[in-house]
């Protein structure tokens, strides 16, 4: 009966991908903008669930659970509370402006807004390159997660590589034809399915942890899990703040999120996005992870060697194969939603933000380049996962904070902050990135503060100083 969970997973993947194919029947993207911004046709449900589903990823089934398992409650404050206080708030602030810009000037990606505002390709290309770098490792994590679920579900019969290939082929087909519209439609069903399963998992884990009494018991057995600096001893109050600010500030600026703001049909939809996301994200998504790591600590008092595999291992051992198949399918769906939007963002960043700005190419060619980059980028990531995983880990350490560095260009461009000049924004991004690399690999986290914080602060200070020095070149505000 080893094939039962596997068959359920494949069925779930195929069924939840169907809306992606159906979307193509109703909306056939003709232009580059249609492909990247779904022709600005996404409804409230599609935007809210798609933005949510973009972040319900391999991390929610594996990475975040391990993060809380290692850092305890301070890890949760940094990730969960930080996300809802900073990222979700930014969704509201940014979304409305991005949608307005998209309506009037047909922008789709952050570098589009940067070029429109500064009227120069230089800051836009720098933003594009930085965002391209930060997207790659995120995608690899999803591929690895999908392959891992299939490997466990088949009892090791389907090797890692074939598992990843199956998901790769299904996704490539609907992404190639429908672009963001297909991706968002598939995200609706995949996101809803994942949320439903997340509630069930949360409730089950609550029972396994022994409820409130079981969790209270943990405070006597591992008190360090509930206090600064966490179990690993890293998450001091200063480190927590310096970690959560750049990471949570950077996330809404990543192209896979930014592009979906541009794609909403009516800008009023974006008014309710923060409230909707915070309800879904906390009650249904983050709490599942929090209760899972607590249950893991109760179940394995001696420690669990690979905490990122905690959830999958517990459910594989304790749940019926069909139910495990559904969970595996939900996990696959969560990873596919993230990966598809990220691949589209990667292709768009490369074709629209870098190539189209550096070389003269027609609209049709740019669209073809985008599609090919999307597919090749995805495949390249798959190969890199096996050949040079160290490279991904290296870039991965940087990527979370890169968004915060590009903020010096994207925020002024989106909010019409004319104090910032193109030279200030470009110098800020370059120097901020250099400091980020330096504080990540050479002088690691100076003064106990996270490297991303140093990168972000350097970018902001440099941007202000250079903008003051070049105040003659201040941009004109964009009329919206």
């Amino acid at each position: 009966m080893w094939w039962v969970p596997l068959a359920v997973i494949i069925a779930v993947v195929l069924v939840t991908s169907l809306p992606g194919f159906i979307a193509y029947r109703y909306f056939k993207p003709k232009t580059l903008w249609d492909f990247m911004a779904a022709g600005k046709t996404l409804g409230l449900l599609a935007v809210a669930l798609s933005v949510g589903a973009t972040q319900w990823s391999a991390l929610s089934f594996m990475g975040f659970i391990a993060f809380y398992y290692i850092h305890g409650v301070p890890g949760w404050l940094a990730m969960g509370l930080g996300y809802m206080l900073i990222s979700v708030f930014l969704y509201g602030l940014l979304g409305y402006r991005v949608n307005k810009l998209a309506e009037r000037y047909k922008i789709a990606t952050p570098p589009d807004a940067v070029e429109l505002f500064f009227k120069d390709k230089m800051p836009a290309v720098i933003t594009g390159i930085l965002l391209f770098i930060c997207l790659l490792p995120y995608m690899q994590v999803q591929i690895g997660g999908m392959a891992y679920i299939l490997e466990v579900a088949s009892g090791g019969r389907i090797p890692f590589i074939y598992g990843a290939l199956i998901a790769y082929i299904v996704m490539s087909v609907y992404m190639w034809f429908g672009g963001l519209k297909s991706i968002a439609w598939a995200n609706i069903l995949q996101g809803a399915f994942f949320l439903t399963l997340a509630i069930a998992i949360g409730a089950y884990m609550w029972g396994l942890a022994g409820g409130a009494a079981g969790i209270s018991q943990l405070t006597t057995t591992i008190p360090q899990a509930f206090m600064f600096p966490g179990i690993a001893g890293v998450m001091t109050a200063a480190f927590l703040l310096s970690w959560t600010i750049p990471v949570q500030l950077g996330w809404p600026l990543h192209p896979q999120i930014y592009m979906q703001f541009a794609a909403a049909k009516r800008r009023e939809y974006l008014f309710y996005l923060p409230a909707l996301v915070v309800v879904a994200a906390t009650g249904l998504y983050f709490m599942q992870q929090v209760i899972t790591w607590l249950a893991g600590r109760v179940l394995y008092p001696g420690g669990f060697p690979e905490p990122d595999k905690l959830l999958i291992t517990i459910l594989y051992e304790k749940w019926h194969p069909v139910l495990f198949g559904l969970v595996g399918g939900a996990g696959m769906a969560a990873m596919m939603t993230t990966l598809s939007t990220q691949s589209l963002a990667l292709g768009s960043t490369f074709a629209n933000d870098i190539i189209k700005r550096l070389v003269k190419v027609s609209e049709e060619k740019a669209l073809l380049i985008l599609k090919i980059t999307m597919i090749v980028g995805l495949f390249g990531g798959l190969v890199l996962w096996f050949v040079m995983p160290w490279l991904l880990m290296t870039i991965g350490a940087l990527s979370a904070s890169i968004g915060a560095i590009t903020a010096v260009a994207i925020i002024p461009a989106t909010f019409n902050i004319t104090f910032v000049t193109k030279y200030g924004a470009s110098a800020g991004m370059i120097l901020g990135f250099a400091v980020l690399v330096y504080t990540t690999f050479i002088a690691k986290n100076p003064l106990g503060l996270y490297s991303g914080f140093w990168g972000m602060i350097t970018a902001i200070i440099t941007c202000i100083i250079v903008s003051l020095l070049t105040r003659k070149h201040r941009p004109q505000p964009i009329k919206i």
Partner: protein
Amino acid sequence: MDEVDKVDLQHLIIHIIVMFGVFMPPGAFLFMKPDIIGGFPLALWIYWIFAYIYLVAHYFIWGRRREKAYMKMSMKMGKG
């Protein structure tokens, strides 16, 4: 700065004051004195439930006010 931007700015200021003025001091205090109210997890859950209620209410009211401002703005533009 249009009507919606004004609402956004007001809510940003309220949000920052609540984040740093209301949630951070008791949060830090609970971490320093974990056994202050019936054990740390209880304090944590209470803290978290208040944060959650605040977030949902703040974001919902913000959305409502933005929509009203937007409607007002659209009507003005229509008349103009």
